[in-house]
């Protein structure tokens, strides 16, 4: 069930009976056919335990379940939408950037501190993303929102990519992330270049970067 791009700010999803799509609550723009929208109090898959997990991790963006037979158009806040097709890999994305995703994908939360220890914790704080991030795994499509369009940058073992934490959208693949600091005396005296913190992503995969330093 891939998302069909209508323009840079709208996607259309085909809904067939027996398959669910999760989307951010209120992100439906229009639909055709017999489609029902049910608010999802557990913010996604799993039972009450998963909900508690997400609540604690502050990764509980309000979601709704879309079911039925027809097609639905999604869009939100005039943000640019980027569709990512997963074939077994894991996508790491912030819950509030998720517009819609295939119900077949397994949703989970990951503790940032588990990658990079203390630096991982600081990373979450410095980037304002919190300590947890949402993971989606399996085969299916995900529609991710970004401010001002997305560029995909490949990460290869020999070429790690550094990203401005504010411009980071999502990443996928076997990627380790680490917060690097380039703080020196210049930052301390208020003469910094504005690039004091960077996310270093290394391994094999892709990182999605938005053309802006604004959060959603």
């Amino acid at each position, binding site marked *: 069930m891939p998302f069909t791009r209508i323009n840079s700010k709208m996607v259309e999803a085909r809904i067939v009976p027996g398959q669910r799509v999760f989307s951010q609550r209120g992100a439906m723009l229009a639909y055709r056919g017999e489609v029902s929208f049910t608010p999802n109090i557990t913010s996604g898959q799993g039972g009450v335990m998963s909900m508690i997990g997400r609540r604690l991790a502050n990764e509980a963006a309000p979601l709704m379940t879309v079911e039925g037979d027809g097609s639905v158009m999604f869009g939100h806040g005039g943000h640019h939408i980027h569709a990512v097709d997963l074939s077994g890999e894991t996508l790491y994305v912030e819950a509030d950037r998720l517009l819609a995703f295939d119900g077949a994908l397994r949703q989970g939360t990951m503790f940032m501190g588990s990658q990079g220890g203390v630096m991982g914790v600081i990373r979450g704080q410095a980037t304002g993303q919190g300590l947890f991030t949402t993971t989606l795994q399996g085969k299916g499509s995900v529609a991710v929102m970004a401010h001002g369009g997305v560029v995909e940058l490949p990460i290869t073992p020999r070429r790690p*990519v550094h990203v*401005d934490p504010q411009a980071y959208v999502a990443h996928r693949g076997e990627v380790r992330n680490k917060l690097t600091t380039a703080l020196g005396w210049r930052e301390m005296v208020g003469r910094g*270049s*504005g690039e004091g913190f960077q996310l270093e992503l290394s391994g094999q995969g892709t990182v999605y970067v938005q053309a*802006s330093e604004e959060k959603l």
Partner: protein
Amino acid sequence: MANFRLHGSRVLAVDLDGDAVKAKKGAMVAYDGDMTFKKMTGGGEGLRGLVTRRITGEAMAVMEVKGQGTCYFADRATEITLVRLTGDKLYVEASNLLVTEPALRTGTSFTGLRGASQGNGLFTTTVEGSGQAAIMSDGPAITLRVSGAYPLTVDPGAYIAHSGNLRQQLQSAVGWRTLMGEGSGESFQIRFEGEGLVYIQPSERTTVGGQL
């Protein structure tokens, strides 16, 4: 030799091979390879630049990006236009300048009354030399050619940059209607005459003239 490539219309990729470019402070979104970022006080124009920029209010927060690899720049999802200069001079607002090659010199120049009407202050930034510069605009910029027989008049709020040998003057169409508060919103215009190019954006900054 820095190589500028546009990734879509909002992200600029610059390939560096040990050389440096000047960029708007904080505009890096990603890079691969090794890069260092250093703030350049006074727009990288030395002590003289520091003083002039302080006095003129045309403050430009610039950083020097140096290294080996590819660096990606973007700023608030604005559209980016590449301008190639071959010895000529580009006049641009400091806030619209994203990246310049090291071979280009930047400075400040007096714009007169036009600046005040644009809400940009009385001074503007000039970029001189040979090389590429990336300018930003709110929405895709269009380039308009001005020649001897065809002068051009633009809205001060939509103006972003110009190059070539142009004379500019501020026109006002303030009449009794404006005074009554029934103005058309187009009471001030800048008229360009001569030979050159003018870059405008499909959006208007809030200006003093735009309110009237």
